[in-house]
């Protein structure tokens, strides 16, 4: 039978056959759940009973009216602040390690190492570091006489998000750095040299020659950071579980408890969709800003 097909038909058949499996997988594991999520966000459902009832926009209204959810979302912006700092730090280390420094490979490995570590392991490690009574940080602070600084790090509503933000910085800075490093190495050395010969100082060369050449990569790193910080979940979930008294809840930990603690899957789905929308908005702003700066 294949003999009867024209070359064109055979080609199309082949393409369809090759694409069938990946497309089916995509539909099954990405598209279907995504559409189901949208569908659920308009429903009232407790997660196990056979009946789901139509709720219309009620879930969304409640998401926007619930002050606790938005208070939790504001905590995400603390992480975002640390995330921006993390990018700056990553870029700084990348610039430093891009020079002909002694032992730079060792430094690169050390700085990248935290990223390889498992998130749960990191959480447990810092749980020990920041423990108020037995932790190494407070022991150190007591040791050097700074007793008043040795506070309950996870217990203070004011500091807890910053502590968690710092841990995310520690964990993900290496990734940013490596990406920046790769970008820096792709900047042609001729133009940098030409700038130096023309009398540009090192700082000027970086600011006016190197950075404009890697805006795309800066954009990528910001993109990753923004998504990561707005959707932060594992660290607060493992280390504080939203405590003390909800001071370290993030949008996603709230979503999880709405679904699995309060059995309100409809509203949790609406929260997820809202989060996607919020990420798109923040990313839009970021693109707008970086575009203008790049031009």
């Amino acid at each position: 039978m294949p003999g009867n097909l024209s070359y064109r038909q055979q080609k199309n058949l082949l393409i369809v056959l090759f694409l069938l499996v990946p497309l089916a997988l995509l539909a099954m594991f990405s598209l279907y759940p995504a559409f189901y999520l949208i569908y659920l966000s308009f429903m009232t459902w407790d997660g196990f009973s056979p009946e789901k009832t139509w709720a219309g926009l009620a879930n969304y209204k409640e998401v926007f009216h619930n002050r606790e959810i938005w208070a939790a979302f504001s905590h995400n912006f603390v992480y975002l602040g640390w995330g921006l700092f993390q990018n700056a730090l990553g870029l700084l280390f990348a610039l430093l390690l891009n020079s002909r420094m002694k032992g730079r490979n060792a430094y690169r490995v050390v700085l990248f190492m935290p990223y390889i570590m498992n998130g749960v392991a990191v959480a447990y490690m810092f749980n020990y570091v920041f423990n108020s009574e037995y932790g190494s940080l407070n022991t150190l602070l007591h040791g050097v006489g700074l007793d008043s600084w040795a506070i309950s790090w996870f217990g203070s509503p004011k500091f807890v998000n910053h502590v968690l933000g710092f841990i995310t910085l520690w964990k993900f800075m290496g990734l940013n750095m490596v990406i920046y490093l790769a970008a820096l190495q792709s900047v042609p050395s001729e133009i940098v040299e030409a700038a130096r010969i023309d009398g540009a100082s090192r700082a000027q060369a970086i600011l006016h020659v190197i950075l404009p050449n890697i805006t795309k990569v800066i954009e990528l790193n910001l993109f990753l950071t923004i998504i990561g910080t707005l959707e932060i979940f594992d660290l607060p979930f493992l280390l504080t579980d939203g405590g003390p008294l909800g001071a370290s809840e993030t949008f996603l930990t709230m979503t999880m408890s709405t679904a699995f603690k309060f059995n309100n899957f409809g509203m949790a789905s609406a929260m997820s969709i809202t989060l996607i929308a919020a990420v798109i908005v923040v990313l839009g702003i970021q693109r707008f800003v970086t575009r203008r700066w790049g031009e």
Partner: protein
Amino acid sequence: MKKTITLGLTMTLGAGLLAACGSSENNSDASASASDSAQPSASAGSSAGASPSASGADGGSQLKGTITWATHRTELVDTDLKKYVDAFEAKYPGTEVKIEGLKDYEQTIRVRMAADELPDVLSLVETTKADLPKFYEPLDDLGLDDDIYFKDFNAYQGKVYGITQQVAINGLLYNKKAFEKAGIAAPPKTLDELFADADKLKAAGIVPMATAFKDAWTMQYWTDPAEFIYGNTGLRNDKIKTDTPFTVDGAYGQGLGILKQLFDKGDLEKDVYSATWDQTQKDLASGKAAMMYIGNWAISNLVSNGLSLDDIGFVPLPYDNSGTYKGMMRNDWAYAVSANSKNKELAKAFVKFMIEESGDYADHMIISPLKDQKQSLTQITDFMSYNPQMMEAQAVSEDVTAVENKMQFDPFKFVQEVTVGKMQDVFDSYNKKWAAAKASVAKGK
């Protein structure tokens, strides 16, 4: 360019193949387990079908086949639970009980519930009462209804769908050595004595009252005094009658006030926000902390942390100065049989065996759900020598659950907030949320 395309294609294909392998493996796995459960259930179905027609409800000797038992007690699956299953299988030859220990028990079961694939015997996961018959089988024909505690907890329209696996009594657990070190001869008999003892313990450098505040769930027991003062265990359910259930001079304010006073006087852990249950067990065992208000099941935790059973005291919590006592009994996870089980006879026989014959309660120093079971643990007999009026905790009613879920009420966090916050402010904000959620739930109906 071409190279990248080929590379991309290869990778996609590779991934597709990998995924395909994965999924086919899953499929075969699923079909294997499906046929697994289908086979025995087919044979079981015939025997189950045969036994009632042959000899009515009494089909003890005909029990055959295989059932699956899902349990949340993962740490005991390969040891004690295996022992009970072996004993059961020895008693009824030709039967097989497969134990399935589930780490994330409740979530896993909920997913299976939605998929209608519950194991034959399981620990009951709460649903609305009206949904109980949809998922679970009535257990009234076990003949245990009048002998067990908490028969109404998982009942609907007069039928019992779950039997609690153990009963817990909440009391003041204390380390006798720590009391000795602080010069305290006997456990506190009145509330004033409790505060006085706390001062002595503090002076001796011991944390008077441990809470494991950070882990939150350990705080739930502190609502007991509120129910003692209220006079019955309907406090949480009676909230539905009012728009302002939380008042400072009411049961909630007075009951939680005990914990709050302890906190305000510095009688809890130095930094409550980092006090975890893991650490608390060790501190109680070592005498760094002296008391905790918690269920009797925690006694075995202290023993496994190295405190001798003789040094553990367990008495009712004095919630006022009257010298009369009350004790709260709470249920635990309940045994249940799936409504879709293919071998209900065997599943029910197994539940009966676990409750009556397994010896589970003695092995784990817990209290059997059977009212007539004699308690051998000295801590429990000591507790009972105070003649406390025992109260059975109630299930949260459906309409209260609906409102609480609507307002996203977290009872643990509530106790935490009252303890460290300004009681009036905390109550005001909860009353406001309660009233709004109640109105919106009422409107939805």
